[in-house]
């Protein structure tokens, strides 16, 4: 565990990012970095600015100040599709399955470098997409197999259960061949068994595909057992950053959780163990 975080070069560097909504600073000078090859958890009480930070990083919100360097390139303020093309791919807290499209189309859509997605190629080189389509379909079916969704490939995504949609969204994000995967509460709203399986997938992905993962989570237990590093946010800032066992003892983290959210029993129980 130590090796991964110590040897990896920084993939994502966030410096003093600020995002204001009127008078409210939802993200108030957040600074953090994510090293290549690890699984990093981003935790914090409700309203800490975790999702807002995700939205700024991925270009869905325009950040007001600061700098975001991804793979050595400044990306703050770039449009979301360009950031995704550069290899930072996100999922959403509320799953965005493309409901009236078949599962397989959800997957194939995400694959990069499909010449048939350009209208001029469709018109002037109608055969250009064929080869890539075959390749992408094969890859999509393999990934669906990994997530136990292969039998549902031709079903409409909207007919899937909530948990299956979460898996589909993760699988779809992987089809985009990300360097950094940003997952916004991947375990929310799915049953614990499926949640654990999803975490196992993540561990496997890191090993096999070398994908770096940054994920938002509420459940401290999950975070402690499945991440190499934990970044804690409160009130728009990063208040702690380190290995799980360090962070759980950090007084500021305990205060942030105890002070803000009384109804987070896992967080409260942790420090005494």
């Amino acid at each position, binding site marked *: 565990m130590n090796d991964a975080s110590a040897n990896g070069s920084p993939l994502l560097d966030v410096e003093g990012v600020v995002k204001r909504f009127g008078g409210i600073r939802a993200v108030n000078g957040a600074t953090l970095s994510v090293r290549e090859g690890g699984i990093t958890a981003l935790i914090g009480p409700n309203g800490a600015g975790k999702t807002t930070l995700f939205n700024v990083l*991925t270009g*869905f919100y325009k950040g007001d100040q600061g700098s975001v360097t991804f793979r050595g390139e400044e990306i703050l303020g770039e*449009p*979301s*599709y*360009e950031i*995704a*093309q550069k290899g930072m*791919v*996100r*999922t*959403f807290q509320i799953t*965005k399955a*493309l*409901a*009236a*499209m078949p599962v397989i*189309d959800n997957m*194939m*859509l*995400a694959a*990069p470098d*499909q010449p*048939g*997605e*350009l*209208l001029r190629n*469709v018109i002037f080189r*109608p055969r250009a*997409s064929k080869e890539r*389509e075959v390749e992408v379909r094969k890859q999509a079916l393999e990934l669906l197999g990994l997530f136990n969704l292969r039998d549902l490939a031709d079903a*409409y*995504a*909207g*007919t899937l259960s909530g948990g299956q949609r979460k898996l589909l969204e993760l699988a*779809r*994000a992987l089809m*985009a061949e990300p360097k950094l995967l940003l997952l916004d509460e991947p375990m929310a709203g799915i049953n614990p068994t499926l949640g654990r399986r999803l975490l196992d997938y993540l561990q496997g992905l890191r090993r096999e595909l070398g994908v770096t993962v940054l994920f938002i989570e509420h459940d401290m237990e999950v975070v402690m057992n499945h991440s190499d590093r934990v970044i804690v946010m409160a009130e728009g800032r990063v208040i702690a950053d380190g290995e799980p066992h360090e962070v759980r003892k950090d007084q500021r983290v305990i205060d942030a959780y105890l002070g803000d959210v009384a109804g987070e029993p896992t967080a409260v129980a942790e420090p005494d163990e």
Partner: protein
Amino acid sequence: MTLLAVSLDAITNINFWISVGVIAGTYAVVALGLQLNTGFTGIVNFGQAAFMAIGAYTMAILVLKAGFSFWLSLPCAVLVTMLFGVVIGLPSLRLRADYFAIVTIALAEVVRLFAQNARGLTGGNEGLFCATDDPSNCYTNAWRDLSDHINNFVSNFWGDPDSLFPLLLVIWATVGISIFLLRRLQRTPWGRVLRAIREDEDAALALGKHTLVYKLQSLAISACLGAIAGFFLALNLATVHPLDFEPLVTFFAYSVLILGGLGSYRGVAVGAALFWFVLEGTRFIDLPDPPFTETRIAALRLAITGLLLIGLMAFRPQGLFGKREEMVLGE
């Protein structure tokens, strides 16, 4: 029982139904563009009448005022209309779908009112028709020649074909070719991105798709179809007049779309034929004059068409060819 009789000799009048077929085909072309926008890209375009107007007016102005040949004016007018669609779409397609709908309906009215008032260019409320001083300079002449050729050929099989018959052929051939091409487009990876935008634009953005470009392309293709429908309207009526491009045109086209079903190009063709069959067929309902005066029957026809739509929505909300699953899941 003579209360609700139908006059049979009128209803079997083939020339009447040919003219209905011409209108229905024109609306099918209009609604195919709406299908691409609303049914497959999720952008609610209420400005299709504006594209028809710009196509028709550009064609007529190029022929009558700039001395273009009719055949050259057609591609030029299509290009102008598509360019107009892109220019309008660039700021407005960044809006949310419902605001975009409002912008486009306003746009359609602006275009129509401009045509009504820019008399020097568009002839204002007189419309644009053949120059009275020079009958040789008219956009319908070149078409008339071709039309006569077609009818000469057709008269080998059919004694005395209607003068609108060639237009009917050309329009429905256009509908057929457009459906073929649009269906092929829809099956490409490009079409897949459009559907993703319809389902959830943010998801498409997060997967690296430059959604604005796709929406602009969708709108431009729809503008192209609108312009072509504008040509058909101009050839059918032999004039280009602002009142032919009222918002009602777009709403009728939407009725066609809903009747045929969202997400089906073939449904548009069937919907157009059915809509105009009912709307025009109800002309022949014979009711005793008092109390059923002509104006009352005219209103009654619209009411019957409306009832048909309501009935369809109740029993088959996805339209004739729409997929129910897609409609239910799409929400």
